[in-house]
């Protein structure tokens, strides 16, 4: 049963990749997932993409500063996101798809908030520059 659940999860993950593949895929390590827990330093509610900046302590105790994007505000509000979604100092757990070049950058798939609620970046592909669009 456990094996089946894992397989279902992988099927869902694969489908989500295909749904997300419209986004500017050139820079992202498609299909790769990272789960990061850290502290919010800024929530930039803006065009063409919102940016969540947060600090994460890595395995060696070094603090890494991550920048993760979402789509533009009008494309996030239908899924429950807002300018007030995060405050500086919030402890969050972010699942993201990192960029290929190893920089601490990625696009957000979902974020678990301090109150336990989860925000999902459910919007289908929105253009970059145009995403403001």
């Amino acid at each position, binding site marked *: 049963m456990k094996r*089946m659940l894992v397989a279902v999860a992988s099927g869902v*993950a694969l489908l989500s990749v295909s749904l997300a593949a419209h986004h500017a895929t050139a820079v992202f390590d498609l299909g790769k997932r990272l789960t990061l827990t850290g502290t919010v330093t800024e929530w930039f509610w803006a065009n063409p993409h919102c940016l969540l900046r947060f600090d994460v302590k890595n395995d060696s105790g070094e603090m890494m500063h991550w920048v993760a994007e979402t789509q533009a505000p009008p494309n996030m509000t*239908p899924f429950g996101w807002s300018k007030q979604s995060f405050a500086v100092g919030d402890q969050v757990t972010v699942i993201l798809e990192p960029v290929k070049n190893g920089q601490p950058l990625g696009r957000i798939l979902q974020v678990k908030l301090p109150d336990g609620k989860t925000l999902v970046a459910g*919007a289908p592909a929105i253009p970059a*520059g*145009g995403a*403001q669009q």
Partner: protein
Amino acid sequence: MKRGSGIGDQESGIGDPGSSYVGAGFSRPYSPTLLIPIFAIAIVTLLSPALLGQQGLRRTPGAVYDIDFPGKKSGPPPRRDISGIWEFANGGGEGIQADGAKAMPSDGKPEHELPFTPEGRKAFQANKPTFGFTQVPSALTNDPMPGCDPQGFPRIVLHNAHHEQIIQTATQVVILYQFNKKWRSIWTDGRKLPSNPEVPAWDIKGSPPAEARFWGYSVGRWVDDYTFVADSNGFDDRSWLDNAGRPHSDALHVIETYHRVDADHLVKTITIDDPKYYTRPWVALDKLPYRLQSPSLEIPEQECVPSETAKYNQLFANPAAK
């Protein structure tokens, strides 16, 4: 005229997005015979109407969609009336055309090859979009939009389209667009399009000097009581047709057809006719359905903000492209 060989021969450097999947946390292989039915269940579940209503269907607060009225038949269409606030009938995501015009996306498929002239192909190859089959990283693009240059028409409806409000007066059909709060006037007072689209001007005393425009010149007419057709020309060729870098020349002529299907629905078709860049007209939007909304629906604000774009490029786009 020889048909262009299509976009499939462009150098894109983009591989199959699905081939690089790395399932984090899955260390053991699973039997394909086990996975096939499970994938099928997962896909069917995700695409079920209930879940689409919650997840896949992008909702604007207060807007209504066809999925909200299962089995309900709409009333007859009003005569010569396309006014109102309109949203995509099947969800806000219907207007998102990241990889280019909805009916002809830039995906490398032979059926989506555009009929470029040699000059049109050259212009397409010079454009560096961040989406579509010829995409480049954001930091390398020459897309005019990320810098907040005017999107223009028809890109406003062939890229990341949203609500439209249509207002009819005695002399115009006015379309208000969400993005950047832009509008177009389609004249219905009997005037003719500029006869020289390369040096366009209204042939009306007192009109502004001749100039090409990002939003062109538009005239419209009712071809029957339920179908409104607009023709536009006189475009500034700095804008792109769509988000995949499809170009247009100063000879661009756009045909829009609005057909009022019933009391609640309008379908829109857009045809691109640009003899300098394309050997024949091609359909960019094909009967895309819109649903009439409450007259009190608030259309969201969505602005291209240069300072925000600069910060995004500094913090994300540029380091991601290194």
